[in-house]
């Protein structure tokens, strides 16, 4: 198996640059162009699977970085001092502006996501059918339908959560709860002294069961009830209970 960095991890060249700037703890207003273009090039080389429609955008940015870098290497010309152009333009200025503008909306997207998930905690109900109250209208008028209204109504409907059908009609489907899988997994792990392998936690090769098991593992990690280790890339992932284990670096 070949190791590939998924390009999907970034929303585009600006996102990748922001990631690098943050990772390298660089001042966004004073970007060391040589470092950043080297890092950037390394990254897009590692992304060996370049998707055709986004690859070009990453490559254009690579070229832009090179060009800024070389402009900064040019010896400064003695320029005519003009009233309305008092300072020499920094060749990075345009890029910095773009990065800052993009960062603003990236943050705004996070805010919207918060609103989205908050709103999803409120449940609603469908409107009652009022047609029994009103007389069928026999107007010659055309019914007005707007495509946006139609789509809006449909999406509202899809968003609405429904109470499950009573149990009696659900006999064929076996529900596995994450909570239950979490307990089972914890029991499995705690019943052994040595760490268990990750694949042991997926005993039933059925999609719903595997999904629930996977989510249960994630939740257990989040609650710090289990500890996941891997010696090196592609080696077996091992899982152990955090109970009675003092984490390294902690007093």
């Amino acid at each position, binding site marked *: 198996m070949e190791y590939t960095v998924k390009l999907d991890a970034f929303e585009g060249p600006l996102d990748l640059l922001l990631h690098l700037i943050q990772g390298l703890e660089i001042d966004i207003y004073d970007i060391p162009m040589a470092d950043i273009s080297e890092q950037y090039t390394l990254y897009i080389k590692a992304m060996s699977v370049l998707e055709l429609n986004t690859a070009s955008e990453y490559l254009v940015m690579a070229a832009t970085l090179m060009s800024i870098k070389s402009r900064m290497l040019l010896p400064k010309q003695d320029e005519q001092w003009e009233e309305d152009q008092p300072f020499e333009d920094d060749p990075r200025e345009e890029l910095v502006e773009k990065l800052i503008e993009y960062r603003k909306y990236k943050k705004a997207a996070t805010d919207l996501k918060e609103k989205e998930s908050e709103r999803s905690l409120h449940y609603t109900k469908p409107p009652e059918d009022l047609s029994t109250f009103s007389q069928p209208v026999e107007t010659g008028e055309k*019914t007005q339908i707007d495509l946006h209204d139609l789509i809006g109504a449909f999406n509202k409907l899809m968003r609405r959560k429904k109470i499950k059908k009573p149990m009696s009609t659900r006999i064929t489907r076996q529900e596995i709860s994450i909570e239950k899988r979490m307990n089972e997994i914890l029991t499995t792990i705690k019943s052994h002294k040595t760490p268990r392998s990750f694949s042991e936690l997926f005993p039933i090769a059925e999609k719903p069961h*595997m999904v629930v098991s996977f989510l249960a593992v994630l939740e257990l990690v989040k609650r710090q009830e289990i500890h996941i280790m891997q010696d090196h890339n592609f080696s077996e992932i091992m899982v152990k209970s955090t109970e009675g284990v003092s984490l390294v670096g902690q007093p």
Partner: protein
Amino acid sequence: MDSHKQKAIVEGLLFTAGDAGLSRDQISEALNLSDSESTDLMSTLQEQYMNDDSRGIEIAVFAEKYQLVTKKDLSDYIKLLADSPSPSSLTQAGLETLAIIAYKQPVTRVQIEEVRGVKTDGPVHTLLARGLIKEVGRNEGAGRAILYGTTDEFLDYLGLKDLSQLPPLPEDLEEDEKEDSDLFFESLKNGLEQKN
């Protein structure tokens, strides 16, 4: 759990359930109560809603299911509401029903109700009367339920040449992403099988 919290939960659940209602079993399950405890709780609540003059809804029991309904003496006001949208535009219920028929046709009334989660006789009737939908056949099998589809007039109103011009549903757009995650599980499964 204190009784305030219990009452709040019941109201929230009944509200979400709409006219599908909730059985006593479902209420017991949600609140972790015994059958007799939830029966008691529900009669207390029924009485409370009924006797509170500032409340417009009450708890009714239909076919062994609790559901919220508006109080009878409000029907005049609700009738006003029914008449208030201009006669030439569709209600939210009408739009939803039309959207389901447009995207899922041919479709039976029961199938529409499954998607909407509420009775849909009224809206189907209105849409038929306005010539936006029509019967397009009968379902195979027991019952031979009527199948509905949209009319040419529907396309006309929306200014569409044919149904393929309807904007795609988000589900269709997101299918690609779903396939990706399927692939993920596929390879996870394969990986595990190889290990075993």
